[in-house]
């Protein structure tokens, strides 16, 4: 399984930033952040072929490096790519999202723990069991055979 070409990497970075740009308001990087991009490239694994297919499709739509297009043309290409890109485009978008939403800076901004669920787990509130009282008050009405 060959790695992405430099052109493909450039387009991946550009489209990733279009999906999730950096935000000063939320103090988060964009999905074109070098660490997030490195995570994508390192963990492409079984998604490599579909992501390459998506990037080839993107390149055909753009006709040149995505970053070289003006904003309006780039947006038009992205819209068509997402609308007609099928499983390959969906895979590329999913790869961007799954790497973005496990980045420490992003999770911290969301107020989420920077860890795997195991072994610490989470504490769950018991909740208000009196809510069940109206249901308990109903007569049993199990349909018999």
């Amino acid at each position, binding site marked *: 399984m060959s790695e992405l070409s430099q052109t493909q990497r450039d387009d991946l970075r550009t489209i990733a930033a*279009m*999906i*999730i*740009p950096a*935000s000063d*308001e*939320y103090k*988060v990087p964009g999905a074109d952040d070098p660490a997030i991009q490195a995570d994508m490239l390192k*963990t492409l*694994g*079984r*998604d490599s072929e579909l992501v390459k297919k998506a990037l080839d499709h993107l390149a055909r739509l753009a006709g040149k490096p995505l970053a070289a297009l003006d904003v309006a043309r780039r947006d038009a290409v*992205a819209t068509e790519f*997402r609308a007609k890109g099928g499983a390959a485009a*969906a895979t590329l*978008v*999913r790869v961007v*999202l*799954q*790497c*973005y*939403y*496990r980045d420490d800076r992003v*999770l911290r901004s*969301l107020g*989420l723990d920077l*860890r*795997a*669920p*195991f*072994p*610490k*787990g*989470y*504490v*769950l*509130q*018991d*909740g*208000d*069991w009196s*809510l*069940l009282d*109206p*249901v*308990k008050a*109903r*007569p*049993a*009405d*199990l*349909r*018999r*055979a």
Partner: protein
Amino acid sequence: MNDPVDVLIIGAGASGAAVAWSLADTKMHILCLDQGGWMNPAEYPSTGRDWEAKFYGDWATSPNIRGRPEDYPINDDNSPIKVVNFNAVGGSTVMYTAHWPRLHPSDFKVKTLDGVADDWPIDYDTLTPFFEENDRMMGVSGLSGDPRSPLTHPPMPPQPLGLSGPLIGKAMNKLGWHWWPSDTTVATMDYEGRARCINLGHCTPACAQGAKASTDITYWPHAIRAGVELKTHCRVREILTNEHGMASGVVYYDKDGVEQFQPAEVVIIACNGVGTPRLLLNSVSGRFPNGLANSSGLVGKNLMFHPYAQVYGFVKEVTDSNRAPPTCLWSKEFYDTDLSRGFVRGYGIQFGRGAGPVFEAVASEQKGILPWGADHHRVFRKLNGHRLAVSAICEDLPEEHNRVTLDPVLKDGHGIPAPRIDYTISENSRKMMDHGLARGREILEAAGATDICTNDPIPWGGWHLLGTARMGTDPGRSVVNEWGRSHDVKNLFIVDGSVFVTSGGVNPTSTIQAIALYIADQMKQRLANLFD
């Protein structure tokens, strides 16, 4: 050739494990072959930071996506519902939501009550002691006394309601509709060597804590201690028969890929509603040219899935998200037939507590409610951690054109023909799903949810594989008799979901295992004349 065994069980999942454990007290030589191996909880998804990403790859629910060597491919292109399963010791109990309702008494008498499909040859009361025994073995948590469900006696208290449960409960109370804490196989206290749930949240693709019951950690340790032998990475190709028309044993490929013959006095199939008909249809001989145990022509037919009609939305309040077992409540408000709804039979409702951030981002982007660009962050913060879901589990009625056959081209890693699924959603199921979607929307709106979306059906929702070797007293209308023995081959038994006559409107694993224990009990009672 291997030494003969008394009993050969094919499949170490939900039903195979239960039947192995039950038969162990006969002191017969019992061997189980499974195409998968023992799982290592230290490698389960929730142990790593990439826990959500694994759900789209190595831990996908579809064997076609997952593609582990232990999996076999399934051609389900001609079905709107894709087959999902897991192949290992423990089978699909390794990868399930642990939701644990039982079929209702009325589910066994659908012809008598509603004039559709067929009645079962057994009834709920026959299974009651086996439901109870199975609940103890699997370790069930729940709250006894649900006015609209069969009476259960869970040995552990129910899961906490958390943040999501009260939101759902209030909405259901507002509508005056039934709801109740689900019975689940999630241990809410330390139980029989299993540690209590610590809310890892990512329950479906295996529980690293061991709080979720899977048969590799419930039945199998007991069965092995009692003397049952379990061989892993052994994929059975076909069942052979002798000159008397009895099963003589199986041909399988061992862990090194070497073809082996294993002779046996009794063969029990526990390969689920797709794997079992596949094996029978692959077991062709001069005496059984249409596949083994198939004189009725019904092997593989009457496949039932339970179409899932799911509605989800987003509330202002924070929900449990990925910080709790995904299911905690059910409703039986629409379970029984009411012809004014425009369909016969009904559906159970399974509520969902929420989702993790990656799942939320991927699902919401695909639905078009999470935009690209500058507004992405604001919208994501509105959605993430605010999801509630309502899923109608619709009773699928048996139809012969919904079926499992052998694919003429597709084969597994050992060259064994793979199953092909041909399935359509019936008009009755379609109406039931529409009803479920409308009621789900009402529930979510009562909870104050917005941005409501649907999955109709849940495409990768073919968890429940039922009906493809149905039980019955008429050999012309069924594959096995009322205690699981093949009508055609008197030392061949089927104990998995294939034997279901109808599907009910609930997750079936509890009932599958109760039936497996019942069949094992019948075998033990009839050992002296088992083949008469």
